[in-house]
C-alpha cells in the first residue's frame, strides 16, 4: 500500500517537473521532439535509480555513522558525476546500441538537478529503507518521463500553430508548461 501511494504521489500529485520544479533544464531543453525526449527519459531512469541506490547506501553506512552528514551535498554530486562517467564508459563497451540511444544525453545528466534532488529527497522518506528509496527514484523518473514526453508531443504540434511574434520560443513553451502543470494540479488530494 505504501508503495502504491509513493508511485501515485510521485507520478501525478507531486510530479517532479510540474509541481516540484526539478529537472526544468532538460524539460525545456530536450523536449522539441518526442523521440529525443524518450531517449532522455530512459537515461534519467537509469542514472536516477542507480544514483539514489549508491547515495542512499553511502549516506546510511558511511556519512551518518561517521558524523559527516554535512558533507552530503559534496559527496552526492561527486558520486553522481562519477557514476555518469562510468555508465557512459560501460555502456559504450557492453551495449553499443543502448549507448547509441542514450549516449548523447548522459553528460547532460550530471547537471540535471532532478537526479541530485531525488537522491536528497529519498533520504527524508517516512520509514526509509533501501528498497523504498530505489522505488521512490523509479517512480520519480516515471513522473519525469510522463511530463517530458507529453510536453514534447504538444511542442511538436506547436510547430504548426500560428503564434504571435513576441510569444515565440521561450514564452509559449513556458505557457504550455504552465497549463500542463495546471492540469496536474487537479490530482492534488488524490492520496
Amino acid at each position, binding site marked *: 500500500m505504501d508503495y502504491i501511494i509513493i508511485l501515485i504521489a510521485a507520478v501525478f500529485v507531486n510530479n517532479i517537473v510540474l509541481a516540484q520544479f*526539478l529537472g526544468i533544464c532538460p524539460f525545456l531543453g530536450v523536449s522539441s521532439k518526442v523521440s529525443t525526449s524518450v531517449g532522455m527519459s530512459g537515461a534519467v531512469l537509469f542514472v536516477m535509480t542507480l544514483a539514489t541506490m549508491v547515495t542512499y547506501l553511502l549516506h546510511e553506512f558511511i556519512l551518518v555513522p561517521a558524523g559527516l552528514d554535512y558533507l552530503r551535498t559534496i559527496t552526492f554530486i561527486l558520486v553522481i558525476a562519477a557514476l555518469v562517467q562510468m555508465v557512459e564508459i560501460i555502456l559504450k563497451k557492453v551495449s553499443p546500441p543502448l549507448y547509441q540511444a542514450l549516449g548523447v544525453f548522459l553528460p547532460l545528466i550530471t547537471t540535471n538537478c532532478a537526479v*541530485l534532488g531525488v537522491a536528497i*529527497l529519498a533520504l527524508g522518506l517516512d520509514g526509509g529503507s533501501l528498497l523504498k528509496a530505489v522505488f521512490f527514484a523509479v517512480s520519480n523518473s516515471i513522473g519525469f518521463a510522463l511530463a517530458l514526453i507529453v510536453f514534447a508531443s504538444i511542442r511538436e504540434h506547436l510547430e504548426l500553430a500560428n503564434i504571435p511574434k513576441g510569444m515565440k520560443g521561450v514564452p509559449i513553451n513556458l*505557457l504550455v508548461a504552465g497549463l500542463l*502543470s495546471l492540469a496536474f494540479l487537479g490530482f492534488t488530494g488524490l492520496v
Partner: protein
Amino acid sequence: MAEKVNQTQNFLKGIVKDNPVFVMLLGMCPTLGVTSSAFNGLGMGVATLFVLLMSNIVVSLVKTQIPSKVRIPAFIIVIASFVTIVEMVLEAFIPFLYEQLGIFIPLIVVNCLILGRAEAFASKNNILSSIVDALGMGLGFVIALTALGAVREILGSGSIFEFKFVAEDANTFILFILPPGAFIALAYLSVLFNKISIKTT
C-alpha cells in the same frame, strides 16, 4: 580607458544582454521553485550570487594549477564546498529562510549558471574580470528572481515583501503562488523582457 569600458560592459551584459534567466535560460529550477514571494526570490538570488562570486574567484585564482582534464570535477568540488557553507550558515543564522528554500539550497550545486560561468569565463580570465562577471551575472539572476517573486506575490497573495495591501480575507489569484503560476508568470515576464531589451539595443 579601454580597460574600464570593457569592465562596465562586462558587468552589464549579465543584467541585460545575457541575462541568465530571461536570455540564457540557466538555473530555471530555483527560478520557478522558490519564487512564491519576493523575499524568497531575493534570498535565493543572493545565495546564488555569493556562491557564483566565490567560485569565480577561486577558479580564476587556481586555473593555472589545474590540469585541464580534471578541471570539471575540480570546479564541482569548489562549488559544492561553497554551497555547503551557504547551507550551514543559513541554517544557523537565518533558519526561517533555510526552511523556505528547502531542497533548493543544496541544488545550487547543479545550477548550470555557476558551473557555466566557471568553465566559460573564470577559467579563462583574470581575477578582476571574473569578479565583475560574477557580480553582473549574479545581479541579473537576483533581479530576475526578485521580479518574478514580486509579481507572483502581488497577484497571488496581495502583498509585497510580506506587506499586505488588500484586506486580510480578500480573494487573490491563488493560482500565481501555486506551481502553474510560476510558469505562466515567467512566460509573460520574458515577453516583457524581450520587448524592453529589443528596444534598448
